[in-house]
């Protein structure tokens, strides 16, 4: 077990492409950190720099108290689970798990003990003699995890380990990874582009965009108080509605026209206003209390079972807006709809920088 | 190249050493030697050599003998390439289509790949033999009295037939794998859009096979130029005389029998230039082939 410290870590590839632009994160012992962001945001590069598979251009990576910038991956006391599992196709499951231990010159019976123990935890005991190609996707995933566990490393590194599984198995393995990490208490860094996976697994989220950290925080804090429009639209599904508004005397108005009422409380000329679909309430008549009120026309109704989403647009065109409604609510395309949102659920962002203004 | 690589000061050189050593000693050095001696005239009694510039080249290219051999090589290459490609394509298309016995046909049509060119030549010598050859008997029924090794045309004919026979399997294997690489859904879409099988072949299958075809064209030209040496050597029975021979055979003849070092080297250099051009074209085509799939 160990802490992991990243201090203004940068990665510049040949041709002056800056993939990671000075990232600093302090990871506590036993913490589960998820790096999340769209493809190309630098999250995998960052993870691979921690693993030692990429050189660090500038900055420092420490595992525990040791600076590991120039330490070989094998000597960093980490284990990694890969997206395509990277199992050795010609070795049995047992040998896949044991290979790293053998290379360290560990005693045979200690290897055997660890492999059996990992197999027991992951319930792959009966497959130990099989080759990877005789296993299903989920079983391969478990073997890949097993290879990490047997090492009893200071940290686990996960590189999108669930993205090759089908939806059902993904949910199942997600829970399993969480349980495993909680019982082992090993410091973990997990990379994903799936915000749901990130939310459910993380002790703390690191949202990355274009090689920079947009926000670090507990999942619920990131959800409640997104630091920027990027985070607001990336975390949460369906994404937060973002509306361009202008001040209109003491009130607010949609850039594209009418349909919005509310108070200008921050004293600027224009904002981006964010409201999550689940925070919009359908009301019978234009409300007049505080917060924000909208008037929209229903375009499409999308039932997903537990709830439904209404895609609606403003009377004079312009932006589209998504509203979560009860699955039993009845709405027809073309129908007029009044919406309101409580003041505490309305987020204000700077119109130019996209940063949160509070 | 891989994103992640090992770093070691000496290991990669050690790994490359055997190959580079052999390449340098047995490929680069002799090639450089060939280029050098193509500009020199060797004294026939071994008393040194004199620089003669491009004389060897002009002598070679202007000699009537060289012209005759070059013309034969061109004709020979043309027939060998197109006959073996055409027959192989026809057989591959049929073998791809039949349901019964496809794998037996495949095996029976490709095993000749393993027969060495000179052995193919020897079989040719037997079947075209003046006294015992059944092919000679066969054509005699139509009044064609074949005289292999005596008649220029008849000898060329035997060489071409033997060379085509030897080359069909390679073309067949590549065409068949090319055909099997065409996606089933494309074929099905085509069979819905077009009723005539022949038309479907020329408008859908053939264009999709074209990259393989171009690639094979180069392979076959190379084959006809170089790999047929054994066939030519055996069919002319070591007595080239007035028999048809290819350019490569002439390099060998002038170098080893004629002791004309400069002339042989000049011919080598001309051939090197041809290989160079063919290889460049081949690599261009491979690049395209990759993009195609």
């Amino acid at each position, binding site marked *: 077990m160990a802490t992991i410290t990243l201090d203004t870590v940068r990665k510049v590839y040949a041709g002056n492409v800056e993939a990671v632009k000075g990232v600093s994160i302090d990871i506590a012992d036993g913490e589960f950190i998820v790096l999340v962001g769209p493809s190309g945001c630098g999250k995998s590069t960052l993870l691979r720099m921690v693993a030692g598979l990429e050189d660090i251009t500038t900055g420092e990576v420490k595992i525990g108290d040791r600076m590991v910038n120039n330490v070989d991956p094998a000597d960093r006391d980490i284990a990694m689970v890969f997206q395509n*599992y990277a199992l*050795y196709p010609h070795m049995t499951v047992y040998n896949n798990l044991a290979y790293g231990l053998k290379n360290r010159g560990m005693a045979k019976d200690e290897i055997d003990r660890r492999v059996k123990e990992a197999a027991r935890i992951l319930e792959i005991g009966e497959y130990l003699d099989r080759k990877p190609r005789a296993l299903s996707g989920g079983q391969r995933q478990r073997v890949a995890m097993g290879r990490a566990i047997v090492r009893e490393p200071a940290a686990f590194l996960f590189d999108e380990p669930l993205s090759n599984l089908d939806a059902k198995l993904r949910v199942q393995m997600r829970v399993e990874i969480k349980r495993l990490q909680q019982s082992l208490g090993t410091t973990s860094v997990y990379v994903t582009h799936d915000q749901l996976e990130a939310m459910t697994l993380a002790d703390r989220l690191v949202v990355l965009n274009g090689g920079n950290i947009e926000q670090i925080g507990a999942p619920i804090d990131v959800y409640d108080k997104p630091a920027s429009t990027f985070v607001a639209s990336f975390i949460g599904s369906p994404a937060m509605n973002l509306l361009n508004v202008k001040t209109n005397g003491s009130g607010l108005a949609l850039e594209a026209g009418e349909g919005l009422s509310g108070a200008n409380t921050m004293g600027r000329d224009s904002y981006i206003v964010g409201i999550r679909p689940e925070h919009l309430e359908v009301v019978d008549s234009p409300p007049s209390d505080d917060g924000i009120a909208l008037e929209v026309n229903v375009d499409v109704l999308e039932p997903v079972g537990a709830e439904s989403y209404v895609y609606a647009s403003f009377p004079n065109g312009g932006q589209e807006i998504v509203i979560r409604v009860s699955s039993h609510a009845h709405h027809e395309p073309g129908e007029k709809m009044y919406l309101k949102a409580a003041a505490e659920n309305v987020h204000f962002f700077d119109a130019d920088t996209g940063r949160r203004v509070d | 190249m891989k994103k992640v690589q090992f770093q070691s000061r000496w290991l990669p050189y050690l790994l490359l050493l055997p190959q580079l050593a052999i390449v340098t000693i047995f490929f680069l050095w*002799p090639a450089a030697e060939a280029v050098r001696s193509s500009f020199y005239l060797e004294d026939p009694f071994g008393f040194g050599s004199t620089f003669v510039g491009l004389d060897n080249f002009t002598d070679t290219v202007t000699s009537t003998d060289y012209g005759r051999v070059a013309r034969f090589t061109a004709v020979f290459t043309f027939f060998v390439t197109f006959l073996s490609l055409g027959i192989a394509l026809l057989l591959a298309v*049929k073998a791809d289509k039949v349901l019964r016995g496809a794998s037996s046909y495949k095996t029976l049509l490709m095993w000749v790949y*393993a027969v060495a060119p000179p*052995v193919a030549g020897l079989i040719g010598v*037997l079947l075209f033999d003046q006294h*015992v050859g059944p092919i000679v008997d066969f054509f005699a029924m139509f009044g064609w009295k074949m005289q292999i090794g005596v008649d220029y045309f008849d000898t060329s004919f035997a060489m071409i037939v033997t060379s085509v026979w030897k080359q069909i399997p390679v073309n067949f294997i*590549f065409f068949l794998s090319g055909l099997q690489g065409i996606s089933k859904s494309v074929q099905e879409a085509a069979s819905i859009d077009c009723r005539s099988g022949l038309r479907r072949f020329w408008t859908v299958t053939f264009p999709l096979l074209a990259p393989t075809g171009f690639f094979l064209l180069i392979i076959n030209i190379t084959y006809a130029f170089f790999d047929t040496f054994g066939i030519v050597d055996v069919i002319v029975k070591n007595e080239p005389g007035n028999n048809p021979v290819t350019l490569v055979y002439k390099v060998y003849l002038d170098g080893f029998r004629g002791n004309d070092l400069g002339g042989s080297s000049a011919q080598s250099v001309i051939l090197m230039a041809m290989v160079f051009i063919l290889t460049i074209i081949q690599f261009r085509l491979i690049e395209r082939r990759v993009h195609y799939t």
Partner: protein
Amino acid sequence: MKKIQIWDHVILLAGVFFMVTPVVLTLMTSTHDAITVYKEGVQFLPGGKFLENYETVLFQAGGFTKEVDGFVMLKNSMILGFGFAIGKIIISMLAAYAIVYFRFPMASLCFWVIFATLLLPLEVRILPSYEIVQSLGMVNTYSGLIVPLIASATGTFFFRQFFMSVPEELLEAARIDGAGPWKFFKDILVPLSQTMIAAIFIIMFVYGWNQYLWPTLITTDESLFTLVRGIKQILQVWVGAQIPAFNEAMALAILAIVPPVLIVVVFQSWFVKGLVESDK
């Protein structure tokens, strides 16, 4: 539909006839005595001299110097086929490993030097190659026969192509598992390449076995003749005789054909895969 299939079979059978008949006639002719063949021409049916003819060509010394028999030539062909294939696989795997998995200065220069061999087939550099091998004292030796043939780039390209297709994560996983360059090669890459090694072995064995021009130049000592190299002698001694011994000449031809054909037919799927992939 049915009618079309019948024509397909007719065309294919004609193709098979064209490809198979010459070798069948060769085989049949090799089972008769010389007089029968000389009098009646090429034989279409098996004769009774199979064992006799093959025993003669295998174990009775023939040729100019009467020093060599078919068995010795068979042995030499095996040495050339195996030596060439194994040597080529080892050398080209090592070279491809260096090119794909190592970062070092002059990597691309080394690659191009090896690549250049494709531009220099033996046939265009016959005379100087011979002189160099002669000056190194390698004429009439097995190493002189095999080594100069080994270095062409084909095998190296084949393995380079294959190594590039090995998922990158395997190397990363192996490095985290503590495997260095040698361990990775031995524990992961070589076992993974098994099928590829088999495929290239078949192609290279056939290629080596079938070499003609180079053995013709380098071996003048009959005890080093391979079967394919011996064709020229067969032509002069057996076929060129007063009464040509076509039967024995064809028996030797069959001996030269059978081993490579067997390998190609038995390991057909590997062979086809190797051939089609290596030329890509």
